[in-house]
């Protein structure tokens, strides 16, 4: 800018250019994601992506990480993560209607991990429940790699009329800039820069600037903003996130090609003696910034009052392209808004890490074959990565709004849209171990998992959002994992026609115990033309035939759940996802549901065929029995392979569906040349697989329906 920046200007740059805001390392790589599509109304670049879903309706959605804040203060970290993503959706003008959370923790054998897990779940619920947006799905996994560095990714979906879409770009010289919501305090000063540091002993002491969420204020903010938008009182709207006023104002100005002047002494403050730079970068929660025509300002402030919110005119839109900070009538800082919005980018060389070649390859021959498969199945079902998530989503209000058609517990959640036949489905997935063993394949498999989960419900996947949780990109391994996972995800999204319309990056997820598994998480939404035509994994009728569709029997133990849980090994390279088959079979299953031919479907994923069958039994409370003949077939692993591989091996591109016998011919016709096999029948009071497995429903339940939390855990506190 041709002169030495002042301290205030420096702090603006430092917060804006930190990874958290500027995507220094990831921006060039993100270009690989497809982001176009016939349904896309808004791709990356706005507060959230938006896709059209029919009848004049659109969905705005985005996923965001709050990993570091949650590692330091789990309850508030998770809560403010939820609050933040809700405001991104609100900024598009949409009413937030669904939340999902994607979580990672170290093993629950460690007290600190139990504490983080408990308080994060409480934080997600504490905020989401109070603000009245149902938490309808998510996922959670436990692994050593996340000890001390939990992952907390929150996704929000908003519903909006296509015509009512809002944008954040400021316009109209002389228009006023209004700050709505709560007062500004010293919350998270330098939090934005902190969020991209590695966690160290020292960062533990940064606690004093922890941000505390106020879901009550957020609820008022949602209703107030939607009312203002409904009455056409706003020119543009933007949430305040990392870097507070600085990023919001500069982004609004830059995208509108105008300037914005902020008078810091007009900002309502919570504490005295705040410096202008503190006001500019404060990350106080529950605030939105709006551009308003002068003659509407008074009405806007009145509305804020009606909703018990603080509202104040804090600046104006100017024709110069600068973000100007004014204090007591004096300009104390001037920065071209574009400078702030466009941080410099780094491109790095991609070098294959040596660890990938050191991962022991898997030769099943030297794996001992289990004696007792009943025990193996129960051990799998009770494992913290496979057991029921009820003890988590039972703490989340997943029904408020009265639109939840398929609640948590199925492969994805299904929501209706009142006054239409339309519905949408949403799922969040991540595959950290797979991405560690094979970054590119794992990246693709992450997208595949979400695509499959939506298809199981009968929804047509239309677009995705993502959260890229990685270690340090300044280390070759970290950068390789980032680049390769993105490549794999991009290929899958390309193949599936599901553009990535929004996302978020969280790098430097490392502690003195090392880096996390590379863990991109994907949130995908799908459309149901008739929301009543959906399926669930639950068996519904005695006597139904159970059919495996796809590659069920060509499964592998490499990097599988079975290998880790039962054989205590993390080895091998999981099979390369077959994108063509995944799409073909997913689309087929979806058509079967849409045509009303099947109402029972589940994908074969972690834990393989036996676990998938057990999940369907547990969901429906009806047993299943392998027909004797076929059991033999399976006992030698669907054609000469190991039994454990046949039961618990993973591969993907495979589903289990159930139909009444009288529709079997119809189904076979519909399946045409697609590999399938009628393997079992719904009936009995447990799971029976030939002479291999025979476990009663009660034992299945006891193993699966585990409470992942200590009973009567006290609130808050800081344990460990």
């Amino acid at each position, binding site marked *: 800018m041709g002169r030495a920046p002042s301290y205030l200007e420096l702090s603006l740059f430092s917060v804006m250019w930190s990874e958290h805001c500027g995507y220094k390392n990831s921006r060039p790589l993100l270009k690989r994601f497809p982001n176009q599509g016939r349904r896309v109304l808004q791709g990356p670049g706005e507060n959230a992506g938006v896709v059209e879903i029919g009848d004049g309706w659109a969905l705005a959605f985005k996923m965001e990480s709050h990993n570091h804040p949650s590692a*330091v*203060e789990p*309850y*508030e970290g998770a809560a403010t993560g939820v609050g933040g993503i809700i405001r991104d959706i609100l900024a598009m003008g949409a009413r937030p209607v669904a939340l999902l959370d994607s979580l990672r923790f170290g093993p629950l054998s460690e007290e600190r991990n139990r504490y983080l897990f408990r308080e994060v779940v409480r934080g997600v619920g504490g905020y989401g429940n109070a603000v009245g947006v149902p938490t309808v799905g998510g996922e959670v996994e436990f692994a050593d790699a996340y000890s001390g560095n939990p992952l907390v990714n929150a996704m929000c979906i908003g519903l909006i009329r296509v015509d009512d879409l809002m944008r954040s770009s400021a316009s109209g010289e002389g228009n006023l800039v209004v700050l709505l919501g*709560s007062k500004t*305090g*010293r*919350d998270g000063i330098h939090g934005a820069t902190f969020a991209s540091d590695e966690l160290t002993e020292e960062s533990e002491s940064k*606690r*004093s600037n*922890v*941000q*505390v*969420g*106020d879901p*009550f*204020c957020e609820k008022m903010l949602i209703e107030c903003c939607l009312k203002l938008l409904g009455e056409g009182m706003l020119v543009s709207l933007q949430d305040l996130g990392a870097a507070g006023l600085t990023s919001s104002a500069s982004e609004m100005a830059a995208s509108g090609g105008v300037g914005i002047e902020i008078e810091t002494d007009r900002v309502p403050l*919570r*504490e005295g003696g705040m410096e202008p730079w503190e006001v500019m970068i404060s990350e*106080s*929660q529950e605030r939105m910034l709006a551009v308003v025509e002068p003659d509407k300002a008074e009405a806007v402030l009145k509305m804020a009052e009606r909703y*018990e919110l603080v509202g104040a005119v804090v600046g104006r839109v100017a024709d110069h392209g600068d973000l100007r900070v004014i204090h007591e009538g004096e300009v104390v800082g001037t920065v071209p808004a574009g400078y702030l919005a466009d941080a410099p980018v780094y491109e790095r060389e991609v070098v294959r890490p040596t660890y990938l070649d050191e991962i022991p390859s898997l030769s099943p021959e030297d794996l001992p074959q289990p004696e007792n498969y009943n025990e193996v199945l129960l051990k799998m079902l009770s494992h913290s990565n496979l057991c029921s998530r009820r003890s988590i989503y039972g703490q989340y209000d997943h029904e408020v709004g009265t639109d939840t058609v398929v609640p948590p517990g199925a492969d994805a959640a299904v929501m209706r849209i009142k006054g239409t036949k339309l519905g949408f489905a949403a799922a969040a997935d991540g595959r950290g171990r797979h991405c560690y063993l094979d970054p590119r394949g794992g990246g693709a498999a992450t997208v595949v998992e979400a695509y499959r989960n939506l298809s199981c419900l009968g929804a047509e996947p239309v677009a995705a959002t993502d959260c890229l949780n990685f270690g340090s990109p300044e280390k070759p391994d970290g950068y390789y994992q980032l680049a390769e996972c993105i490549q794999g995800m991009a290929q899958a999204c390309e193949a599936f026609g599901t553009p990535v319309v929004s996302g978020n990056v969280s790098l430097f997820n490392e502690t003195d115990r090392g880096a996390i598994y590379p863990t991109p998480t994907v949130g995908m939404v799908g459309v149901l033309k008739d929301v009543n035509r959906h399926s669930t994994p639950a068996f519904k009728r005695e006597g139904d035939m159970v059919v495996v569709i796809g590659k069920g029997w060509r499964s592998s133990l490499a990097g599988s759940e079975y290998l880790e849980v039962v054989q205590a090994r993390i080895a091998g390279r999981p099979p390369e996802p077959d994108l063509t088959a995944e799409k073909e079979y997913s689309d087929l299953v979806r058509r079967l549901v849409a045509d009303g031919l099947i109402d029972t479907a589940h994908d074969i994923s972690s834990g393989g065929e036996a676990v998938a069958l057990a999940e369907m039994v547990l969901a429906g409370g009806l047993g299943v029995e392998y027909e004797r003949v076929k059991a033999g077939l399976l006992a030698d692993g669907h054609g000469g392979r190991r039994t454990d591989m046949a039961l618990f091996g993973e591969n993907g591109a495979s589903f289990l569906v159930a139909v009444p016998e009288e529709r079997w011919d119809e189904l076979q016709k519909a399946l045409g040349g697609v590999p399938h096999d009628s393997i079992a029948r719904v009936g009995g009071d447990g799971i029976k697989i030939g002479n291999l497995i025979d476990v009663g429903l009660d034992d299945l339940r006891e193993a699966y329906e585990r409470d992942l939390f200590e009973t009567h855990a*006290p609130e*808050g*506190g*800081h*344990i*460990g």
Partner: protein
Amino acid sequence: MPETLKIRVLVRPKAGILDPQGEAVRSALPALGFGGVKTVHVGRLIELEVESTDDVDAMCRRLLSNPSIEEYEWEVVS
């Protein structure tokens, strides 16, 4: 059996940290006909009966308060 001590622990939000409860109560008071209240802060009161005070401070740090957002004080009341 050893006679016990009654301990009173007061936990309150750290200075500068947002206190949504206190704020909500304060802004509600005038409507309820209670004027002249300048500030309100809401915290926790914990009362313990213990055999010795040795562990009390550790309990406050590790379980009864959340040092990242709260401060505490404790005293023997009897």
